[in-house]
């Protein structure tokens, strides 16, 4: 029986910058069940990373500020936790891995020490226990000679290996949720495929829930069961993965899928491109944030911001227009 692990409601995060207040996340709500993989897709600056960092209170304040919302982890609000409390949750219940493994690892401490730290900290292990467990973890993520390699420093590992170490570290305390923030973006396709397969295998073995943040729809199709597409600090479409690819409904999602070159393309077709670029939001949008780039835009889009509403079982979109007919939805 699966149960709900995470329930985020109405999350809003802002950043104060010299140019003005940036509204990075503008009311994001989503849930995550035990053992489920949620893909979060969007361009740089759409708020996908900030959403997840906010849930773990990893937003530096100032300049950042979580101004509204709840993030219930098994019915306890993470956002209301004190520093000491949330620190226990991070690492032992919810872990996060980041895009660039080189900047996430300390270059002057060897891998063994870095792996052992959370084990000693969160699991009350002795040095010797932590060492044994570190070796097991490296083996688990497919690093050969783990015994020897514990003594090595991050620069002695390749990019793919470093990301494996990050995953080993994130898994060390058996978290219930793993948040992966573009973990394969900096890697070659071949290494990306290895990492994706590894995470899928670990999910089956340990049954943890995963939030996989990416801008690559190909990776999402491979790993996620449900997908949330973000734009301008909102979730603008959310659906089970097959439904999303079979029946994309928001103009932005349609554009994203359309702008990918087709592998089975026979003749030469022109790529569909979404003109313009993502907005920087100095105030909370009063109209649909996608309007300036949207090909379906009409009067209503410029005056009212559409809410995220169900159009189908488990399929929600935030758009006034029915993209199948081109006229407004009822």
């Amino acid at each position: 029986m699966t149960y709900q692990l995470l329930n985020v409601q109405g999350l809003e995060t802002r950043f104060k910058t010299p140019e003005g207040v940036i509204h990075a996340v503008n009311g994001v709500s989503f849930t995550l069940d035990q053992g489920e993989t949620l893909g979060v897709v969007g361009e740089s600056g759409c708020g996908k990373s900030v959403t997840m960092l906010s849930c773990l209170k990893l937003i530096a304040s100032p300049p950042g500020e979580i101004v509204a919302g709840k993030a219930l982890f098994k019915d306890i609000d993470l956002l209301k936790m004190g520093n000491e409390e949330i620190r226990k949750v991070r690492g032992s219940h919810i872990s996060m891995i980041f895009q660039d493994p080189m900047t996430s690892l300390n270059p002057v401490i060897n891998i063994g020490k870095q792996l052992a730290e959370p084990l000693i900290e969160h699991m009350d292990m002795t040095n010797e226990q932590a060492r044994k467990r570190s070796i097991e973890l490296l083996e688990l993520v497919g690093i050969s000679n783990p015994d020897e390699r514990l003594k090595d420093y991050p620069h002695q590992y390749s990019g793919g290996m470093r990301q494996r170490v990050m995953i080993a570290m994130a898994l060390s305390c058996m978290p219930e949720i793993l948040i992966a923030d573009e973990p394969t973006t900096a890697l070659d396709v071949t290494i990306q495929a290895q990492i994706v397969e590894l995470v899928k295998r670990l999910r089956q073995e340990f049954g943890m829930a995963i939030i996989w943040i990416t801008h690559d729809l190909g990776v999402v199709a491979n790993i996620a069961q449900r997908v949330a597409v973000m734009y301008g600090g909102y979730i603008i479409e959310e659906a089970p993965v097959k439904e999303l690819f079979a029946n994309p409904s928001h103009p932005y999602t349609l554009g994203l899928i359309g702008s990918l070159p087709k592998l089975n393309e026979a003749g030469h077709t022109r790529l569909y491109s979404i003109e313009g670029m993502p907005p920087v939001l100095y105030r909370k949008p009063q109209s649909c944030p996608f309007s300036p780039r949207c090909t379906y835009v009409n009067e209503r889009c410029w005056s009212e911001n559409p809410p995220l509403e169900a159009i189908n079982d488990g399929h929600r979109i935030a758009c006034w227009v029915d993209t199948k007919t081109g006229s407004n939805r009822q």
Partner: protein
Amino acid sequence: MNTADETLLHVEDLVMHFPIYRGVIQRQVGAVHAVDGVSFDIKQGETLGLVGESGCGKSTTGRTILQLYKPTAGHVYYRDQDLTTLKPEAMRHMRREMQMIFQDPYASLNPRMTLRDIVSQPLTAFDVASGKEIDDRVAELLKLVKLNPDFAGRYPHEFSGGQRQRIGVARALALNPKFIVCDEPISALDVSIQAQVVNLLEDLQEVLELTYLFIAHDLSMVRHISNRVAVMYLGVIVEITDRNELYNNPLHPYTQALLSAIPVPDPVYSETHQRTIMQGDVPSPVNPPSGCRFRTRCPIVIEECAQQKPELLQIRPNHFAACIRL
């Protein structure tokens, strides 16, 4: 003499080794075998895609062709002229014909120069325009890459990644080049912006009759933009053929593994198709494996692979691959 089949660039046995020095007297102790005997042709007006994992030597190949590195051995013929034997001054003039677009639009533009300065630099360096002519040419170039000419006084930080890449393209086009090396021009960009830049490159190719060497690790985009594709592994070309032939009928096990690793944006497909995942990383180019360089990761390796260096042979019509198992 501008027939479609005319060869613009002919690369022959190109070798680029970077020496490694050690010790007080800086004795050479080894070399990075970045490019190790690469040969291919690029025809007038076509796009040759060059793919492979990081560290396989694809960027070095591009730079060595433009003589940004002095090749260790081999020849590069541009319209029958051997670039490797040209005197520096003669080469400087040849550079008007060939330009480069770089991967990182943040690092390849000087943050202290305005758009006008950046785009006009090639013009002033070769003294082809002055005063008002420069402004006109800059405006024309910015329009060509679909940027507002009124932005000429602005600085790079005021632009997004996609726009910066357009600035890089405008700069490359300033001297009306015929041949452009595109070194991963879209890898640093968002998905929706990638399509914009690729469409722009294709439009420019048609209008200005450009020839591209398109370096990338994104195989699906390479398939889209290229006429022919060369696959590189550890400094050597392992397979080269027309794009459809390569994708429909990959012969070399490395090409097969690369294609299999592409994440297909189709959940039904990925559920029903088992991917073959290649294990391990690219070995160090300081000490490449003997014989076939791919043998340490190859799924169909046999003993002979360690002794025999496979040659690039024509296996099917216009389809070359380097593997003794074929």
